[in-house]
């Protein structure tokens, strides 16, 4: 099979993994050196596909032959898809070619399980080792970790890769039993622990070789089974806490060809995925707890964002006076982000905040208005009930494209 045919099959097989980030790597440069590649810490999206997703890395599978039969996966052994397999050298060639063209900032390599977990992991490590050692490649490398692989192989992978990820896919043991019978929550968490331990070992050891400097991540599928948002978010929160994950990705389950009856054949729940990302961002960046966003079983609201939902539930906190409120509380006002909060704090050191300042700082005033006080503004809506406010502020559904699924 020609390289280009393999590429088409193995890129098509890899598109269901949401992650494509090239950020958080340490600064590396090839200036004046042999070899190529750099990383700046900032990720670069070299292109966008018409699904709105960023293309930052060459994201491919080493092979889509697979011994496992995960129901949600296009590459499961019982799936009738074309199969292909790259040699490690072919992956190296493609990575370097795309990199020189400035089409990508590195490689994200995953694989179906062939022969054994160890054998598969060895092959992935071999690609990274070839790139780093033979080609002196200093770009970004993200390797998927096979949970059942020998911890020694995972440790080796961590020395070559900027990021490792173990996909949890389904956050409950029952979900895994039903849809991914070869997978086990225990071994998934053990692999995360191996990576976490590796990171801890080199922490505060400036001379030690780097270990996954861009951290580890995972992915959960949204909508393949009936797991609710509360379970997803609480799982994410505990993963951030237990293993210091850098990112949890949420991937709306996208229908697959020859779909088995056990998973839905419906359009991917993109809005639900979007709300989960918003909630996840509040966990990571704003200091919210999962309990504050969802304190019992259930889903996030689809018609309002989770920050607005929290504010509507906590009207006693608002309106907040921007001239004296704590920065952490200002950041909880709908329509005002961390960056604007910082700018408001800078500005109020110089003078009083006025309403028109918020326009210039590009706050989403329609959302912020009922929740703020400035030196020249007091919200009329302060007395409106949350139900009324929600009705005014909720996102209207987009008109449907009938042709799309009709």
């Amino acid at each position, binding site marked *: 099979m020609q390289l*280009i045919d393999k*590429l*088409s*099959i193995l*890129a*098509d097989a*890899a*598109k269901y993994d949401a992650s494509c980030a090239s950020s958080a790597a340490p600064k590396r*440069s*090839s200036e*004046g*050196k*042999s070899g*190529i590649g*750099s990383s*700046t810490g900032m990720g*670069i*999206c*070299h*292109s*966008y*596909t*018409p*699904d*709105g*997703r*960023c*293309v930052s890395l060459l994201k*491919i599978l080493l092979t889509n032959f697979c011994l496992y039969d995960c129901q949600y996966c*296009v590459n499961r*052994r*019982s799936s*009738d*898809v*074309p*199969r292909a397999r790259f040699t490690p050298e072919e992956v190296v060639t493609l990575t370097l*070619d795309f990199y*020189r*063209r*400035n*089409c990508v900032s590195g490689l994200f390599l995953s694989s179906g399980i062939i022969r054994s977990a160890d054998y598969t992991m060895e092959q992935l490590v071999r690609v990274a080792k070839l790139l780093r050692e033979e080609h002196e490649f200093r*770009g970004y490398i993200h390797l998927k970790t096979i949970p059942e692989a020998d911890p020694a192989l995972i440790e080796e992978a961590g020395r070559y890769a900027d990021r490792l990820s173990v996909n949890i896919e389904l956050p409950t043991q029952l979900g895994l039993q039903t849809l991914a019978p070869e997978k086990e929550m225990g071994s998934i968490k053990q692999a995360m622990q191996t990576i976490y331990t590796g990171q801890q070992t080199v922490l505060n050891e400036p001379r030690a070789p780097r270990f996954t400097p861009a951290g580890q991540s995972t992915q959960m599928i949204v909508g393949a089974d009936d797991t609710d948002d509360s379970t997803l978010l609480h799982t994410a929160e505990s993963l951030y806490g237990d293993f210091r994950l850098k990112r949890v990705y949420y991937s*709306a389950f*996208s*229908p*697959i060809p020859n*779909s088995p009856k056990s998973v839905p*054949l419906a359009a*991917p729940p*993109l809005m639900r995925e979007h709300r989960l990302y918003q909630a996840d961002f509040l966990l990571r960046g704003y200091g919210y707890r999962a309990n504050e966003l969802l304190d019992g079983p259930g889903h996030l609201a689809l018609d309002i964002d989770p920050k607005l939902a929290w504010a509507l539930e906590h009207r006693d906190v608002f309106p907040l006076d921007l001239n004296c409120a704590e920065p952490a509380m200002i950041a909880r006002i709908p329509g005002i982000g961390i960056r604007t909060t910082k700018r*408001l704090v800078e*500005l109020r050191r*110089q*003078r009083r*905040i006025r309403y028109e*300042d918020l326009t*210039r*700082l590009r706050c989403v005033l329609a959302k912020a208005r009922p929740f703020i006080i400035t030196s020249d503004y007091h919200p009329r809506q302060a007395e409106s009930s949350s139900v009324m406010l929600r009705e005014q502020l909720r996102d209207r559904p987009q008109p449907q494209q009938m*042709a799309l*699924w009709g």
Partner: protein
Amino acid sequence: MIVLDCGDLFDTWRQQARWLLSHQINPDQVSWSVPEDADLFTSDDHYPEQLGPFQARVPLELVELLQNAAQYCGEQRWSLLYEVLWRVSHGDRTAMLAGDKLGSELHRRLKQVSREAHHLHAFLRFIALPVSPNPKDLAVKAALLETQSLPEYVAWHEPAHDILRSASEHFVGRLGRHRWMIATPKDGVFYDGQQLIHKRQCPDAWQALARNADDPHGELWLTYYSHIFNPARLNPRVMQGHLPARFWKNLPEGPLIPALISEARTGKQRDGQARKIAERKGKVIRG
């Protein structure tokens, strides 16, 4: 009205601004303009060439902000900077802050400039030039470019602001000792493996080389781009927000975009697989 031309050079503008400030010349008495427009305005005022008595003190941080914002191409490119400088040097530091009316325009420009630098890092595409084994041939070609050596990679890019010089340093770290050239409609850079040479006016030969480079191995990337796209998640609006249409024409994948969108919209398929894969023979694995 005093009309000045700084040749779109920050250092020249800086000297001019220093002189203006020292004579306490108010921002509304001065404008920057290209030489052709200069005779539209006439100045009756005569000022000495030496610096005046006013000694302005401004934070170092401001100079850096102004220098970055100066890369912005657009109306009032230089006079806005002088207005900010004027206010800060007269004790009003809010002019530097995004919450201020003037400061917000300054910060908008800074954001545009850094976005455009990022666009260069992201959307520029290099094409490898064929290697000629004949050293004489190489020397002739290099002579045409007026460079000591030939680039191994060339790119054509159309930035909206004057970011090429500073933003192209990024590729020095990225491509190591390789030699590369970036041509734009305005300026150009050539890295010869050791130093970065910037030409304010991009030589015609550089532009021709970059625009006409053949790419016989371009198919692999186009294949990848088409297959990593998930048609079940079609969302062209988000794509266009991140990848403005003005870049499409210089991206090899640009011409594929309309067809991928319309196929995803009108096709019969309901899953994420590309049509070309669905048409191929599949293989179930029996253990």
